[in-house]
């Protein structure tokens, strides 16, 4: 699906990513973990094509990403950012319809197909009842679902999540990730997500990529990657790793500093 070959990137001479080699196959669900500034968001922006690597190549389905038209890329790759600011009073339905933008040429208008996709997506996500409400008047969780719906209206094969649940309550976090997981399982949607919460990553993602200072520190299934030693080294935080009593996924526990019991 997507292959990164020796990709490096710097912002104005500040190097952010160094020689990243990475391949993600169709249907995988990959979490990018790492402390702030480790290059997670930059890596997602490179994969979405809005940034171009300074060195190296990115291949999307066999073609070089930077040589594909932006519109064509957006018909295949969709991004759910942390949040969007929306200055205008669009309704939720209108925001989701924006996801159809890559399918329009200068002279075409939104047609039946676009409205059908929008309706399908908002029903799948369970926000059809909010369609006529103003986007800005929705709660944070509802808004994030709308943005997920907008990304899905692009009918993507690859969904990129940039800490999509960072501002949400636990119930909304779980709802959004459940939705993404079911799309991954049922429709073979490839997912790459930057995630903050190690436990959520361990629960929902099949493959974890640990980033440290712009390099891949480790890459593999949660149980192999999320060890006490690795987390200590990457995050400089001492943790205990146990096992989730139900799912058997690794579960990371923190202890307050200086705790003596």
């Amino acid at each position, binding site marked *: 699906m997507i292959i990164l070959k020796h990709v490096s990137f710097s912002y104005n001479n500040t190097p952010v990513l160094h020689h990243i080699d990475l391949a993600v196959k169709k249907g995988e669900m990959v979490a990018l973990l790492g402390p702030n500034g480790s290059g997670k968001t930059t890596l997602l922006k490179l994969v979405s094509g809005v940034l171009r690597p300074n060195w190296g190549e990115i291949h999307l389905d066999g073609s070089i990403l930077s040589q594909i038209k932006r*519109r064509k890329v957006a018909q295949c790759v969709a991004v759910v*950012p942390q949040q969007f600011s929306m200055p205008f*009073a*669009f309704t939720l339905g209108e925001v989701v319809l*924006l996801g159809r933008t890559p399918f329009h040429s200068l002279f075409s*208008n939104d047609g039946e197909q676009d409205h059908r996709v929008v309706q399908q997506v908002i029903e799948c996500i369970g926000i059809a009842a909010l369609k006529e409400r103003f986007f800005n008047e929705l709660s944070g969780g509802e808004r994030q679902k709308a943005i997920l719906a907008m990304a899905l209206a692009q009918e993507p094969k690859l969904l990129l999540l940039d800490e999509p649940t960072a501002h949400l309550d636990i119930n909304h976090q779980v709802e959004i990730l459940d939705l993404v997981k079911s799309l991954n399982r049922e429709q073979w949607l490839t997912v790459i997500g930057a995630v903050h919460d190690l436990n959520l990553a361990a629960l929902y993602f099949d493959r974890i990529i640990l980033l440290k200072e712009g390099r891949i520190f480790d890459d593999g299934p949660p149980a192999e990657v999320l060890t006490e030693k690795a987390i200590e080294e990457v995050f400089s935080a001492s943790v205990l790793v146990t096992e989730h009593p139900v799912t058997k996924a690794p579960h990371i526990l923190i202890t307050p500093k200086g705790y003596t019991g």
Partner: protein
Amino acid sequence: MFALGNKTIKMFTRLKQNRRLLILLALGALLLLCLLIAAALGAVSISALDIIKMTLNKTGLFDFSATWQPSAETILFQLRLPRVIAGALVGAALASAGVLFQGLLRNPMADPYIIGTSAGAAFGATIAMMLPISFAFLSFGLVSIAAFLGALGAVFLVYNLARVGGKTPIVSMLLAGFAVSAMLTAVMFFMVTRGGRPELLHNAFSFLMGSVSGTDWTQIAIIAPLIIGGIVVARFLAFRLNAFSLGEEGAAYLGINVEREKLIILSLGSLLTAAAVCISGLVGFVGLVVPHAVRLVLGPDHRLLLPAAALSGAAFIVLADLFARTVLAPSEIPIGILTAIIGAPFFIYLLRRTRREYAF
């Protein structure tokens, strides 16, 4: 009974689909009505029926017998119609440019003048007024041409000043626009006050407050295709403007080629503004408030907003100019003063009444 319900729903859906068209048709009819009223009223009033008959006669397809004074025909075709149509063009251009700039810059204070067009135009016009030469090119005077070039030149300067490493961030552009405007305005006022000629002050002030009087058919024949063509092109960009409401990053995720589209939208907005400025001078307020007002009533979808704002802006300037020349007749009030006096209270009313919330 169920079948009837279904039918009603279908009819309702179709009606909703045609909502955009219906609103635009209604606004178009409103504009025509304003044009007719404005053409009818003045120092000599001409009946609306006579105006319609005279206009239809001009097409060559009709031949109504004259029920009017010959002088009425001269007044209508030489004075009133060019002025009324110029007003409509200026209003449509400024309102559309306002929609383009507000949509792209996502800034509530954005108007057609925000990135330097007004200061550039005033600067150019003032230099032209000070030059000891005068000529007319295709019936445009030196001042109009200099204003047109000044407006475009200022935007070009601002765009390039704000450009860093192949990107033109919106915030840099707003700030560069502010700086360039401040400098050009300062130099302009220096020239006006030190120019040594008393009529210069008067002429510069007239330009700053705007007027659509004295437009002739040749000017309209040149400017009309520019403005109408510009609005048609802008309408094709409406979908992209909608995407820009998510911000540059969001627009990029939706497959928009951000830097290229930004340049296209900016150029188009600046061209519309410059075209308006060269026939009317600086008419303020319409480009800021008409887009806001229309957005508050009809919503932010640029596919409806853009043409609706163009039609409303046109009607607004036609009415404002009607007041400008009739309220204190025979003397005229500068149209820029009237647009603010009529427009501001109406806008405040809309702002307080509306349910659609702003979150710039």
